[in-house]
């Protein structure tokens, strides 16, 4: 399963669990508009660490969160290399 597919699956699963309406996941979709809240993102990041073995936010130097869904996917793709 590709990183993008894994991430997409996690977004969809968490949205269902949290009873939230997930927007269509396109690269230019702003995460702030995707329908999930910060707690959902923390859950997604924790599960992606379990699935992919990486957490791009684990460093204390991580000072910002991706703005769009595309940024989010690219961040994981770059860290997982």
């Amino acid at each position, binding site marked *: 399963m590709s990183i993008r597919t894994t991430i997409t699956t996690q977004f969809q699963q968490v949205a269902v*669990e949290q009873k939230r309406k997930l*927007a269509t996941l*396109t690269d230019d979709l702003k995460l702030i508009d995707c329908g999930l809240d910060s707690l959902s993102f923390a859950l997604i990041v924790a599960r992606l660490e379990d699935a992919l073995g990486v957490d791009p936010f684990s460093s204390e130097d991580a000072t910002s969160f991706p*703005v769009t869904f595309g940024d989010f996917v690219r961040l994981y793709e770059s860290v997982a290399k």
Partner: protein
Amino acid sequence: MRHAVPGRSTSEHPPVIVTNASGNPTAHMARVCAEPLYFPSGGRGLLGWLHSPVRPDASGMGVVICKPFGNEALCSHRAIRVLAQTVADLGIPALRFDYAGTGDSAELDPSSDQIHAWVSDIVAASSELQRLTGVQRVCLVGFRLGAAMAALAAMQCDRIGGLVLCAPVVSGRRYLRELRTTRLASLVGAGESAMSADGSLEVSGHTLSSASVVALGEIDLTTLAFPPASRMLIIDRDDLPAARSWSDGLTRSGVGAEYLTLPGFVRMLMIAPQFAVVPQAILAAANQWLLGVEQRSATAPPSENRRAPVKPCPLALELPGPSGKRDAMIRERTVTFGEDVELFGIATEPQHGEPRRRAVILLNAGADLHIGVGRMNVSLARSWARQGYLALRMDLAGIGDSPTRAGRPTDEVFPPGALKDVAHAIEFIRTSYGISDVTLAGLCSGAYHALRAAVANLPVSRILMVNPENFFWKEGSKLEELQLAEVVRNPVIYRQRILSLAAWRRVLSGEVNVWRVVKVYFFRPLLALESKLRDLARWLHIRLPDDLGWELEHIDSRALRIVFVFARGEPGIDLLHIEAGSSIRRLGERCRVHIIDGADHTFSKESSQAVLEQILSDELFAKQPRLAEVTRAGAGDSCVERMR
């Protein structure tokens, strides 16, 4: 109407089992008595609820429930309350409580080490349970960070009979990462850093001091010098199990540690209370294990197991007053009131001798209990009491700590009995405190209920409405159904995506609910048309049903102060404009609308909460009945806007 004198209250739950939309049982137990109380810990007063079996057995064991941290405590309130009730139903007294600086307990110095204080609070709660009930041994049941702190507290207590650790935070460093990620995600586009300059960390309106961050980072249950208890049950998350290897290590070292993974933690702890689900499998496993421990310990003669219980004295929580002087304290009391249902609330009383007789009632937002998101209602109540107001933060029937009406589901956001509950609260304040100048304040559905109370001519002086998302609600509607707020909010987003190839691919593959999108587009022009027709009808003095404009003008005619506060971008702003139309223009400054930048729907960040508190306070203390024209509110990035 029956009123309780302000003070300690006792509630017995009706022998009715009903469920909410998520299948949560409300309670159950005629054999259980639940009673709020205050007890001391480190010089601070903590609020607890003692769930006592009406006929306790002689096992001599009790249970202290250790809550998780922050928003998880808010979301899991129902589950923890049900757990306490079911434990008591087994014949075992259970105490749930709020750590210092959380929930309804007294404040904690913001710079102190909260972890250290909260572990001490667990020890104090265990002692208090022993003092109140006479039990000799205590089992601690903890959730997430509460589980880790329960393990640490057990090492300081010689009377701990066992530990139930639910989704325990085994590594504080990993938990801190999770909190930092939550914080980072909440700051998307805000340009702020996750950690503040002083090293503290704020998550969803709950702040961990820098000392607490350090202390939390040092928690590692796998490196404890000795096992925290001789008997342990570890119930791990099925989606992200984190305690397996620790549990295996404990077993190898000879500790009786049972390990399970069960589903249900996400829907218990990490979802808004109106959607949260009581995790039946987790509660059943915990109860079964506790019963086993209790039965083993019941083999000792009762006289060795149990001392004579000591009844608590009625207590109020004393808090520093405006001057900080001992003789000018404000006080909090648990109160109950109502007729068919014994509603629960906390009354924060101004200092003795306050000549001004005025009160404010803080209503639930969604199904959040009376403390509010980020504990905002506690902060507002104490701040306003210091300025001379009596503040009552209450739970509507079926929410928080109020029992559910017979035949109704729990955690209803728009219960049909809400108007009756608000009327009881107003009457309670009038008869118990002699106050008739009453303000209603609420966020989201709380704003809706405040508006409905004013429209229904309940005797109130002001309504402070924060981020209402709807002004009308049809009985039988569901939150998941298409609401007008979505109609107002979504066309812009849909328009942006209509040219997206990926979006069309998802439409064609069935991933998008096309019918919902069509409905949004269909309803939007209808709303605009309806708005024009309502304006025309008002001009002709014809009253149409569900006419917000007419209702606001009616409220205004009774000299009530009407205040709306919105976070910028909230759909309620447009909805107010559409549904009240020309009435808003006619009311002018008599219907005040504040818009705050940089806030979310629940004002979950401390900075936006501070701005909101300032605006609400300014409006509350503005002279009645009308305020002279004001063009700027006094705080932050807010502004007072005229709707045009």
